[in-house]
């Protein structure tokens, strides 16, 4: 159970409530992150700028950014963010669960493009506070053909996890992702 109760839907501004209900209609479950952030209307507004523009524009494909986000969230041990976006990779982008579970680890995999795996490893390193990112790390990514614009996008996707994981983990949103709450499809 989340450490702070979710605000009553009737008390949430209509615009924010519509986001939550729209998400529930599309995905079959509420977005617990958005629901919790409804305690803070500025945070709810900020998350609009944070997610869709960053994931749906730019040079990297959305499916790759989602994988980077999932890998970064796995690195930080955030079951809520990793689970929700792993689910998205399966339901929206057609991967199978086994692939996503392997790819998000960053391990070598014959079904994962090696150039993309290098970005996965960078995302995991960015997300891991204990591992400094060096110039050599960036140079290694460039050797796989990625340009600086694309590397900045990859870093941004990893940084997203540091935002959302902080809220999800500190308030235990993942504790609500249980079968009895209808979240049996998380992994």
């Amino acid at each position, binding site marked *: 159970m989340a*450490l*702070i*109760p979710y*605000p009553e839907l009737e008390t949430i501004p209509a615009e924010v409530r519509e986001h939550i209900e729209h998400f529930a209609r599309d995905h079959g479950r509420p977005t617990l992150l958005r629901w*919790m*952030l409804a*305690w*803070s*209307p*500025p*945070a709810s*507004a*900020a998350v*609009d*700028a*944070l997610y869709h*523009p*960053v994931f749906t*524009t*730019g040079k990297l494909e959305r499916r790759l950014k989602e994988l980077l986000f999932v890998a970064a969230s796995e690195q*930080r*041990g*955030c079951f809520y963010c990793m689970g929700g976006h792993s689910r998205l990779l399966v339901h929206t982008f057609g991967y199978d669960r086994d692939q996503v579970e392997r790819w998000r680890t960053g391990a070598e995999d014959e079904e994962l493009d090696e150039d993309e795996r290098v970005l996965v490893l*960078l995302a995991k390193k*960015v*997300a891991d*506070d204990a591992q*400094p*990112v*060096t*110039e050599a*790390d*960036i140079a290694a990514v460039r050797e796989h053909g990625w340009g*600086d*614009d694309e*590397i*900045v*996008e990859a*870093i*941004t996707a*990893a*940084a*997203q996890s*540091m*935002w*959302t*994981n*902080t*809220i*999800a*983990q*500190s*308030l*235990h949103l993942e504790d609500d992702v249980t079968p009895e709450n209808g979240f049996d499809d998380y992994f």
Partner: protein
Amino acid sequence: MPHITAPDILSMDDDVREQYERFRTEHAHFDELRAVLVRFPSALGAVDEMYRQIMNEGHLGRVLREQVFVAASVVRGCGYAVAGHGGWLLGSGGLARDAVAALEAAEDPASASAPERILLDVCRKVAAAAYRTVAADIDRLEKAGWGRHEIVEALTVVALSGWMNGIAAALGLDGSDAAMAAS
């Protein structure tokens, strides 16, 4: 020097250059980070909007938000963010130098009230390892008088600092540019 350089200002699209320069003129800090983010305009837009909303709006005072930002960034060892936000606290925030120095040393400013110290303490814990947060931490905050709106706001400041710290660290930014000004 960052691991990834900023694009030449003359090569920027007009709207991106306008956005980049507007914040630069108004705030005069984080120029180096924002200049690199010009490579991905959506990220530049995201950071500007997140700052506008999370650092300026809501129930908590701006100076306290900035202190939370610095405290969380100190925990993560992000000199870039500490210099930028510490500079703001010294200048626009009106905080004394020894108060900022205390924050930089992972301590509480002498001027902090008891509830503020508890808030800073829990925020440092979240910044260090969010998954270690427990119900007792939230209880402490509530007993100190913080409401749910304020707790969630403070945590979003920690979250935003995580975003900024992650990007600054990945780009190899130090504090030299961030300390440039306080506005």
